[in-house]
């Protein structure tokens, strides 16, 4: 299972790349493997304000729709429009082209509570 060391993680299987006060969020390799065959991704619109725990996007497989949550409070910078034509990028490149949205966080200190790669690996067991 691919768990890059330079990212942060959530218990609900999102990954977070931190660049200053902006984060990029996607779902982990584990999560995409659990879902299999992503067929549609509903990404959030820019300027949408979210609180930690709010559903930010929806990833749909053949069988089910799964909410993707905002890990911290913030405002959406952009959703990955490329997923409209190629939703399976979430499967094939979950940490790269398959990113889902970018969020400007209200308070960067909130990110301290996110899991490290080691902690996330431990969660996966």
């Amino acid at each position, binding site marked *: 299972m691919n768990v890059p060391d330079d990212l942060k993680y959530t218990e609900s*299987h999102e990954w977070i790349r931190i660049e200053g006060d902006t984060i990029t969020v996607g779902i982990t390799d584990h999560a995409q493997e659990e879902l*299999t065959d992503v067929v*549609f991704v509903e990404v959030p619109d820019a300027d949408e304000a979210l609180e930690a725990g709010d559903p930010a996007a929806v990833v749909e497989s*053949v*069988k089910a*729709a*799964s*909410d993707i949550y905002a890990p911290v409070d913030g405002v959406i910078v952009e959703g990955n429009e490329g997923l*409209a034509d190629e939703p399976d990028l979430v499967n094939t490149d979950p940490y790269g082209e398959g990113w889902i949205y970018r969020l400007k966080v209200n308070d960067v200190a909130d990110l301290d509570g996110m899991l490290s790669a080691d902690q996330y690996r431990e969660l996966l067991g």
Partner: protein
Amino acid sequence: MANSSDADIKQTPLREVHEKFGARMVPFAGWNMPVQYSGIKAEHLAVRNDVGVFDISHMGQFIVSGENAGAWLNRQLTADINKLGDGQGQYTFMLNEQGGVIDDLIIYRTAADSYFMVVNASMIDEDYAWLAGKLEDGVTLENHSDAWAGLAVQGPKSSDLYSKLIGDALALPPRNGIATAEVDGETIVVCRTGYTGEDGYEFFCASEQGPKWFERFVTEGEEFGCLPCGLGARDSLRLEVCYPLNGSDLSPTRTPLQAGLKFAVAMDKGEFTGRSVLAKQLEEGLGERLVAFKMVGKSPPPRPHYPVAVNGEIISEACSAGLSPSLNEGIGMTYLPTELAKIGTQIEIDIRGRRFNAEIVKKPFYKKG
């Protein structure tokens, strides 16, 4: 993302072999069942193009026997049992007094005084109680559901796989047929039906023999492109060919006529439970009908229970619905008033508060060839 679990759940006799093949197990109809192995799309396409094997051990098997079995069944089911010869089967309904569907099932005549019924997993207890409450002299009803393991082998290469594994030991019965034999001292029952729109058969054996047969079908089927398949693919396959799902497209409050399944109702055979309501509907009109819809343009896949709007007003909800792996389009079924239940009617599906265009199309979505 979230997971669910259920401690009080029945296990299929094939549980260990599912785990060996990498199945993801989920609760379904009170059972812990494989939803997928390699992925729903791959499994779905294996059945459409090659062959796939499903565990259907959760489904129920009843044997109805006795000198009055045929006449009695003719009053409990919508099919004309008198038209069945030995070794022949028929898709049929068990209706309540209001003409609503208790269960859809397949009845096979194995001998003049013996019938084999395959019923839905979630309905085993209810079906049995309903039938047991109507028993008469000269009719015996037995529930064999726990004694049998069942496999559904489906796809254009399913008969090749059958020849390889069973060969001359038991000829594959004709479409809708049933055959029973002793093979190496074990009783096997083969029914040629299926719920995928492909050629195929159901293979029943003693529970304890199930894992061995499942493993044999899967591994020896490799040369034919065989995959173990889960409930996810079974659901998308049967939806593409508009086969109804009990509890979703069929319910105790709607009749088989409203579901568009008149072919499985023999109105001319005489009295059966629910007949008077159906006769009245044929005379006065159905009120509403189950129609097929397809999403128009880019949209999330439709799902069961999503609201359905016509002319801006929500008047229904989706029954079975999802993405068609063969067509790569969102498809579904819904009940609409008969005046709207026409090919080409424009509707909208409400998906998480946003409306997406869809239109009523001809059934089925997918046709072989």
